[in-house]
């Protein structure tokens, strides 16, 4: 089994903290899901992860060798409602906003301080174009590849998700914005290994390097350089 800290850089971090080199960008522990944080930590470690963004936990914490960041997930249909939701949401390490149509995505990327843009799979074909891609790259916003859409869905819904993800992968290579990969797991049975992430990422049109970078993105989003950034 992999020992921590695995990198010399990790030695400079406080005890109990280490770099998240492989992190699942969105999971839902109990009470939203049906698996407790401790059990998820066990399972994530077995599957090759050392971090995750957990939606619904009050604050970031470390359980065993797994670092959990708290995440807030926001669904809004206008910038105003998005800002209101952000104001009312409990304080979280990672703010994730669900994507909408092209105009909303551009406005959100330009005016709201967020970390991850989620839910690209259910948007319109032109919802995330080269303009949004450039804005995401400039603002340091990551776009999430939710593997649960490939795992759970089938038929036209899965095809649509794969089509979007392939387009996102292509835009990411061109405009160099960050990607994250998540299992969107509500349960122990929804989690997948890093190897499965890589294989499913390949199906979604991502190469090995993109998957590796995407797994390390949650840590990059928490870096001090990004925290100092002022948006709006």
């Amino acid at each position, binding site marked *: 089994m992999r020992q921590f800290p695995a990198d010399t850089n990790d030695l400079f971090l406080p005890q109990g903290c280490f770099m998240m080199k492989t992190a699942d960008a969105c999971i839902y522990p109990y009470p939203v899901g049906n698996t407790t944080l401790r059990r998820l930590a066990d399972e994530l470690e077995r599957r090759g992860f050392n971090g995750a963004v957990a939606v619904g936990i009050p604050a970031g914490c470390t359980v065993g060798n797994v670092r959990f960041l708290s995440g807030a997930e926001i669904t809004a249909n206008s910038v105003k409602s998005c800002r209101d939701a952000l104001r009312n949401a409990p304080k979280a390490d990672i703010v994730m906003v669900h994507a909408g149509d092209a105009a909303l995505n551009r406005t959100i990327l330009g005016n709201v301080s967020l970390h991850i843009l989620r839910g690209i799979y259910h948007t319109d074909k032109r919802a995330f174009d080269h303009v949004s891609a450039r804005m995401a790259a400039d603002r340091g916003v990551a776009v999430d590849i939710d593997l649960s859409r490939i795992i759970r869905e089938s038929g036209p819904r899965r095809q649509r998700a794969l089509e979007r993800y392939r387009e996102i992968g292509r835009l990411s290579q061109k405009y160099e914005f960050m990607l994250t990969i998540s299992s969107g797991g509500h*349960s122990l*049975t929804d989690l997948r290994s890093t190897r499965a992430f890589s294989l499913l990422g390949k199906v979604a049109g991502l190469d090995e390097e993109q998957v590796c970078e995407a797994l390390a993105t949650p840590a990059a989003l928490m870096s001090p350089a990004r925290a100092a950034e002022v948006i709006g």
Partner: protein
Amino acid sequence: MRPLPPTQRPNWRYIAAEMVPQWCPASARDMHYAILGCEASLFGDSTAAAMRTSVISCDRGVVIIRCIRGTEPDVETVLATVTNVEGAPVALHPFATSGTIHGLKKKITPRPLPSDEGNCEIGNNTYRILGISGQKVDLVQQGIKQTTALYLNTDDLEDF
């Protein structure tokens, strides 16, 4: 009839996958149909036929799958998309591959069966406690239509 010479036999590969949860009551036949369904759904019937996947055994939380050599990554991708077998939620995590069942079985460590540790009540629901190896505990509620489960650790059980 003369047996087929070894050079003309297909080159099989055997994959061992861990079943989560370990106590999932799936039979090898159900597992086979679930995997074939996912295969056809993800890659289409043509590729599924080329893989020639079949389930050799499904016992004690370990599934042994046979496929044609060279198709292992595709089979592993398919296994990642298996979410339920006959309505029971399950995940399959491949952990070993070999050219013979004998070689594969050497890589499989025997797992103890989950122990039944009585019942507990959370809210209005009564759950059966299944002790998995180590600190893991699964609470299972057998309903008429579906099985509901809560996955936790022994420390969490004290909190409840």
